[in-house]
């Protein structure tokens, strides 16, 4: 458990105090007469916040986001703050256990950002009653974005102070990563708001009927995805078993490659593909175990070993992401065009392959794997990689790698504890 620094405590206190103060100051504007609606929305937010299924692709609508938007569209700002803030606090506490400062901070920041969204919505003339057939659609679009930017502002302040990452970049990355799924939540919230206002507020209970349907599919989906990861994992284990001197090699290469890719600020989808390709890069070595047993390699044997890139690519061709097979095929190409299988040079080698090529050499040197006889110290690996800049390796990848070494994170791998980084490492398979 991390210790909570003084600055984080102060920050949490400020946010909670701000939310409380705003509620108290504007208490006379809270529409208590609509207490039934408030309770209904509150209960729905509690339920939606306490059931969490994360979609690793971040592509599906999250029920609690839909409800926050609904609250912004149908309640005035102080009421929205109260309902969303308290609902979120309780829901968060139910799903993650009651850690007061965490739950309160979460509720307070959601309350404040929902209030900001509701304020924007009102200023832009948004009104789900659709007077004279016009809905001021812009308000329905802008208010959620304001909510999200505010929400990411608080989260980024929190995250950047705990992980010591630069605040602005953290904020921007957060907005970028969540913008799309949040925009997708708008249509549902829009329809619910219209039903709420023009039909009857109880109509939004229909949404509760839809949720189990969605959750069922998502749950099965996440399970399938884990199974898929386990299969990839099984392949990694199988490669290890058949390539004994390199045990653990694939995982370390994947960790190093992912670290470099993060340093290069590649997209999460690319990073995930790099991780898979790095895990599977030597899968073509299966069945070549007797070649490695030989004390001296004849030229034909060496050719046979080099063939592992083609065989590996052939195996990975089955994967839905075509780039993975391509990267496996190219992970022994050199930047100056003297590598194999085809002697492709420079930018013609796909980026993923350039990252994996460097990661593989680094790990083989660091752990003294084939073809190196013994392990090298970090300083000499650094020197070697720097010397091969523009020769064996892409200069940009080399620079990124050297920066990660300076930060001391290259060996650790996967430094950012992100929900998105799902290293497929779910229990090893029994293989004899």
């Amino acid at each position, binding site marked *: 458990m991390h210790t909570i620094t003084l600055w984080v405590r102060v920050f949490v206190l400020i946010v909670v105090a701000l939310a409380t103060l705003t509620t108290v100051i504007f208490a006379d504007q809270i529409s208590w007469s609509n207490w039934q609606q408030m309770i209904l929305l509150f209960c729905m937010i509690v339920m939606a916040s306490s059931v969490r299924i994360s*979609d690793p*692709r971040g*592509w*599906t*609508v999250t029920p609690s986001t839909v409800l926050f938007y609904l609250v912004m569209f149908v309640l005035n700002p102080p009421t929205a703050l109260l309902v969303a803030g308290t609902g979120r606090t309780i829901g968060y506490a139910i799903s993650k256990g009651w850690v007061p400062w965490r739950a309160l901070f979460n509720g307070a920041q959601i309350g404040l950002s929902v209030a900001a969204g509701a304020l924007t919505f009102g200023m832009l003339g948004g009104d789900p009653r*659709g007077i004279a*057939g016009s*809905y001021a659609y812009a308000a329905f679009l802008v208010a959620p974005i304001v909510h999200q930017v505010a929400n990411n502002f608080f989260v980024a302040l929190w995250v950047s102070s705990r992980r010591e990452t630069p605040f602005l970049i953290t904020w921007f990355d957060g907005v970028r990563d969540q913008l799309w799924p949040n925009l*997708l939540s708008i*249509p*549902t919230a*829009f*329809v619910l708001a*219209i*039903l709420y206002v*023009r*039909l009857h507020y109880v109509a939004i209970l*229909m949404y509760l009927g*839809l949720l189990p*349907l*969605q959750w069922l*599919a*998502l749950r*099965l*989906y996440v*399970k*399938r*995805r*884990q*199974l*898929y990861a*386990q*299969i*990839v994992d*099984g*392949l990694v284990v*199988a490669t290890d*078993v*058949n390539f004994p001197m390199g045990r653990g090699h694939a995982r370390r290469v994947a960790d190093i490659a992912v670290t470099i890719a993060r340093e290069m600020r590649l997209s999460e989808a690319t990073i995930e593909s790099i991780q898979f390709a790095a895990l599977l890069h030597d*899968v*073509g070595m*299966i*069945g*070549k*175990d*007797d070649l490695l047993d030989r004390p001296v390699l004849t030229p034909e044997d060496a050719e046979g070993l080099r063939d592992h890139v083609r*065989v590996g690519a*052939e*195996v*990975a061709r*089955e*994967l*839905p992401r075509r780039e993975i097979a391509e990267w496996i095929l190219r992970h022994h190409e050199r930047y100056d065009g003297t590598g194999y299988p085809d002697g492709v040079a420079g930018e013609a080698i796909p980026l993923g392959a350039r990252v994996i090529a460097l990661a593989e050499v680094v790990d083989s040197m660091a752990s003294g794997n084939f073809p190196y006889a013994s392990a090298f110290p970090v300083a000499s690996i650094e020197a070697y990689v720097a010397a091969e800049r523009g020769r064996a390796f892409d200069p940009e990848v080399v620079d990124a790698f050297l920066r990660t070494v300076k930060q001391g994170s290259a060996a650790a791998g996967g430094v950012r504890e992100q929900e998105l980084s799902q290293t497929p490492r779910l*229990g090893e*398979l*029994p*293989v*004899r």
Partner: protein
Amino acid sequence: MTPAGIRVFRSGLILAAGISLGFGLSGLSESNLSLAFMLLVIASFGEWLEVRLGPLGAFTLRPVIAFVGLWSAGPALLMLAGLVPVLLVRLPSKRSSLPDELTRAGGDALGFWLGYLIYHYVTGGLGLVWLPVGMSAAVARVASFLAFWIAQIPLQAIGLSLTEGIRYRTGVVHLIWYARWHVLALSLAAIGLSYVGANFGYIVMGIAGVALIETYYPWKLLGEQTGVLLTSLQMMAQAVDLKDRYTSNHSQKVSRYAVRIARAMGLPEDEVERIRVGGLMHDIGKIGIRGRIIRKPGKLTPEERDAMMQHSSVSAEIIEHLDILGESAEMVRHHHENWDGSGYPSGLKGEEIPLGSRVIFVGDAFDALVTDRPYRKGASRAEALAVIRKNAGTQFDPTVVDAMERISSLL
């Protein structure tokens, strides 16, 4: 069905698609143009959202939008929203041929006409006077939507029996069983959409359509991930086959033979799916055996034989803890048991051997016989079948061998 019969059948469907499309286009007028455009856009999104049903079959949200078109503005929009997206979205994305897609559209068009007739009859002629007006409209809508769905089933089942060799009855039962909850949910959704359109305007209805499609999106994801899973299993199987370069794609072929045989035996599709996975995974345990033993052309020493004979148990152990793969573990474990009890690992006999194991065993033997080896050429299909027939009752289950002979042309 004879090839000529199939041609006539297909031409008829294509004709139906053409006539219905023409009818839809002729029904366009200035007053319904914007509604038609919006329905087309949503229906195209709906077509993109393909949900796979269990092991086979699929549906999209396009018919839902099409029926909203019928209830809002009559049969012309039903045909337009129902058929145009097939050509607009499905044709480019599936890379199939125009006649294939027109055939498909024709099948849908027949269902749409049936749905329209029922809707027309119930709202107009029949009147359902004993029901309140709102209720009778709702009944008419549900009835028309269901009629469409039910009309699809025989057509799809015929298609499945032609392309996949699934028995017609198995196909029908399967399609009804896996679609039942979706059909219920979608008919409610369709009624909801038309209600929103009638009361809050068509733009709100369009946005509601988008919301509906998003709500269903996880189902599309699930179907895709299941497909990814299967390809990753094939990848795993291929990696194992690398151990022996002469058995390239052995596991995939065994899986395919076993599936064909299982369908010829009329097994339920769930079991067929387990057999498919089992066939892919049956040799996975070989991955830890040294390549030189697997590739050894001559006789194995007793230790080497022991190592080889462990592979079926090891395969089962590898997959038994892996979610749905575990359902195939038992049939993988026993895929070298002989019918007379002389096999391994447990020496099971006759009906004690899981049915899936017996099917996979036959497929495995067939592929081993027809594959070329460095030291001998593979047998012809007829020779291989003869060898398997000779060993039916001692090594193989005779009923499985019977089924295999029935479909020998498909192997």
